[in-house]
Each structure stands twice: as structure tokens, then as C-alpha cells.
């Protein structure tokens, strides 16, 4: 397909790999923030062809993985309410809650439906006016505009049986938490290209200045990823630290103003709990007061539900790039995509799932580079 295939050209990949090898003098650790980038790196084997002196660690950019247990439990409670139609992106159905997951709830009779777009959930609510329809609004800044638009359209059209369980999270506050942590080994960041399509790069410039770290806005195809790596290495080797955009064909410096306007109308910034990372101030979106009528937490009286995270899955360490999935004692044994202990083994963007699906083992993976 156009605008994808060109970025998988072996000759060009060869050329950029060679340039990375030439540019890299000192060992460096880069974090790719987005789980989609993690999966592409493993799918295309980039981790196995980059120089051993370069270490890629995987960031928390998987909204499914960082959705806290209590939000899954809220979803399960709503889905189990008689008459409710609970709509969600497919990834969320197998994330374990305290007692089962949404797929199990569906098997037990709950009306749980996978939708492609939040607007599909609004359409279901129009078609079924006598039943409450709830959409599980999960995602980063990329997904927030679509979910905000669904809430806006439902309010304007008076679709009174529609509400949304919101669990939106924001990337820059999480990056600040990671970079502030003791023992942080991150030398440079590959920023999530599709988040930046919406937000632009201003917030990333603040992070880059504050921590003196190169940040490269990076896409998702092999050439995009290698181009991002090359730009970060060139900055490190020349002692520079700034934001560079290597995904400019879709991500402009100013982002998407029309999308941000809708987000600003519907949501307001709030503190959010991240699975594995704890509460991070001003790191999420909640509904603005004018949209209380579509806030499922209020509609179903679940605002005060609090649940502690289980301790049998070290997902927090994986999400901070401090534990390579294959070094988790549960990996591939008690924890597989068929029987996941934690969200990173479930999600299409989870680092554990990527290592499992693309056949990485401790022997041929990170220990070979150590």
C-alpha cells in the first residue's frame, strides 16, 4: 500500500543501518515510547540488526497496558448491569480485572460488543434507545479526539442512553515521571508519531529542555524507526538535545488544531492512576462538568471504586523499560497470550505480547546483547 511499502525497502534499510553503525561511537540507550513502535521493531527484526552498542528499551505507550485494574473492574460492573450494551475496542476484552475479563463477562451473558470506532457505539445507542449503551474510552492523545467527538455528537443529538467510561492518559507527564526516576538510563526518546499528529511538538520541547535529552518524533515503519534512531544517535554523538521531527509527512509542529479544539471542549486534564506506575499528576483526561450526563462513572455510581494492583505481574517494571519481558519468571510459562497475567501480554501493543509473538527468548534476545 502507498505510504507504507516505500518504508520497507531493504536497500534503504540497509543504507540507514549502515549510517547508524558509522554514527554510533559510545553505547546508547533509547526508549521507543509507543507500543506500536515496539511491535514493529520486533516484527521486522530491527532489534536483531542494530549494533550491539545500541540498546532499545520499551516505554509505557500502550493504553491497554496502563489502564488500572479498578477501571477494568468498573467496566465489568457496568457490563454486568442488566440491559446494558457495553462497547469497546477489541484489545480491552481480555485484560484481566479482579475477577475475570470482559470476554468472560460476554460468555456469561453480558452484551459486550467490539466496535471499530466510538461513533459505532453512538449509532448502536441511536438504534437501541431503550437500553443504556456504554463505550469504554481508552487511549492516548491520538484517540481522545475521536472519543470526544462521539460524546459531543451524542450530547448534541440528545442520545440520552449513551455514556462513556473514560480512561484517557497523556504521554508527556508519564515521560517526565520516567525521566525523573532514580537510576533512569534513557539517553534519548523516540516519541510516538501518531500522538504528535494531534498534539504537535511543543510539550516534547519542554521535556527535552528540562532533561537535556534528544527526542525524535518517529513513525512506525522500519525506515521511520531507523531514521528516528539515526537522528537520536547523531544528536547524542554531537552533544545536542532537541526535538527533531522524522515523521513530518503526517505530524506537523503544531499538530491538529481542529482535533484539539474538540478535546478541549469535552475533556479536562485530571490526575490519573497508571497500571504499574501509580498515580501521575495531570496525566489524563476526564469529562468537563458540562458533559457529566455522558460520564458512565457518575451514571452508574462508580466514582469511589478503588482496587489495589495485584503483585504477581511485574508489568510496572516492563512499562518503565526496567524489565525485559523474557526476564520475567512468568513469561511464556504462567503468562502467555492465551492465559495472560497482565495487560502487556494481552494488548496488540504490549511489550510482552510482542516478545512472545515474534519468538524472542532470553537466549537470543537481550542476553545476546548484554
Amino acid at each position, binding site marked *: 500500500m502507498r*505510504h507504507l511499502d516505500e518504508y520497507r525497502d*531493504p536497500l534503504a534499510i*540497509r543504507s540507514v543501518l549502515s549510517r547508524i553503525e558509522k554514527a554510533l561511537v559510545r553505547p546508547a540507550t533509547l526508549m521507543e515510547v509507543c507500543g*506500536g513502535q515496539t511491535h514493529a521493531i520486533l516484527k*521486522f*527484526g530491527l532489534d536483531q*540488526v542494530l549494533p550491539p552498542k545500541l540498546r532499545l528499551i520499551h516505554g509505557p505507550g500502550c493504553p491497554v497496558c496502563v489502564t488500572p485494574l479498578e477501571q477494568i473492574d468498573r467496566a465489568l460492573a457496568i457490563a454486568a448491569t442488566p440491559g446494558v450494551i457495553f462497547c469497546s475496542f477489541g484489545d480491552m476484552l481480555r485484560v484481566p480485572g479482579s475477577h475475570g475479563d470482559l470476554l468472560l463477562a460476554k460468555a456469561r451473558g453480558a452484551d459486550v460488543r467490539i466496535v471499530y470506532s466510538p461513533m459505532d457505539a453512538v449509532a448502536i445507542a441511536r438504534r437501541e434507545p431503550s437500553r443504556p449503551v456504554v463505550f469504554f474510552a481508552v487511549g492516548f492523545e491520538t484517540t481522545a479526539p475521536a472519543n470526544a467527538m462521539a460524546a459531543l455528537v451524542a450530547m448534541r443529538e440528545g442520545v440520552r442512553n449513551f455514556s462513556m467510561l473514560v480512561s484517557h492518559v497523556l504521554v508527556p507527564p508519564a515521560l517526565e515521571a520516567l525521566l525523573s526516576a532514580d537510576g533512569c538510563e534513557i539517553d534519548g526518546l523516540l516519541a510516538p508519531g501518531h500522538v504528535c499528529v494531534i498534539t504537535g511538538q511543543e510539550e516534547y520541547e519542554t521535556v527535552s529542555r528540562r532533561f537535556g535529552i534528544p527526542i525524535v518524533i518517529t513513525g512506525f515503519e522500519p525506515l521511520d524507526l531507523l531514521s528516528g534512531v539515526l537522528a537520536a544517535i547523531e544528536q547524542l554523538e554531537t552533544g545536542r538535545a532537541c526535538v527533531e521531527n522524522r515523521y513530518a509527512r503526517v505530524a506537523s509542529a503544531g499538530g*491538529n488544531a481542529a482535533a484539539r479544539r474538540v478535546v478541549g471542549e469535552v475533556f479536562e486534564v485530571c490526575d490519573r492512576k497508571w497500571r504499574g506506575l501509580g498515580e501521575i499528576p495531570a496525566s489524563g483526561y476526564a469529562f468537563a462538568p458540562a458533559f457529566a450526563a455522558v460520564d458512565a462513572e457518575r451514571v452508574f455510581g462508580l466514582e469511589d471504586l478503588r482496587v489495589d494492583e495485584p503483585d504477581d505481574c511485574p508489568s510496572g517494571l516492563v512499562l518503565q523499560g526496567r524489565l525485559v519481558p523474557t526476564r520475567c519468571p512468568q513469561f511464556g510459562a504462567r503468562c*502467555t497470550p492465551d492465559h495472560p497475567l497482565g495487560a502487556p501480554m494481552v494488548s496488540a501493543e504490549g511489550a510482552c505480547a510482542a516478545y512472545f509473538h515474534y*519468538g524472542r527468548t532470553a537466549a537470543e534476545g537481550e542476553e545476546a546483547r548484554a
Partner: protein
Amino acid sequence: MCLAIPGRLVSVCGAEELRAGEVDFGGVRRPTNLAFVPEAQVGDYVLVHVGFAIAVIDEVVAAETLDALTALDVLRDDPDSLARFEASLPAMAEQPKLRRLH
């Protein structure tokens, strides 16, 4: 979750938040909301995420990016790097290897 796919806009209808169109993804066509890309015209390539176009792909920048990445094939004078790359080619295969470890 942040997955977004480029496709070609083949039709447009409606206005404002309900402005929509059909986007062709290599033969598969999907209805797509165009509220966030008011500048998008039929024939443009747009980036689509959860049923919404979130950007119009800048063809000029795309061409410049590819030119910059493919213009200089430094491997021709670097046989060691080329040999290492050729040796790594099997690892570049796209086929996932489903495997149980225990």
C-alpha cells in the same frame, strides 16, 4: 491503540462534525469521519485512526523524506557492514514465530 493507516480519500459528503467520506485502503473501503481534516479533498491520502482521519499526508514532505533516506547508499564502500546486514536478513522476515517456551 494508536494504530493509524494511510488510505486514499475517494468520496466526501456531509458537513462539520459529520463531514465524512470513503477511504480506500489498498482495495478495502471504509467510511471515515473527516471532521478533523477539513482541508482533505478527494484524491488526498489521509491517516485514519478509529474511523477518523487525523491528518492529510503531505506528499511533498513524504517524497523528500524518502529521498533523504535512500539517496546515499553508503554500503557500496563498506563491505563489512553489508556482510553483517546480509547475515541478518533471515531475522527481517515478517512471519511471526508462534512458540511456547515451556
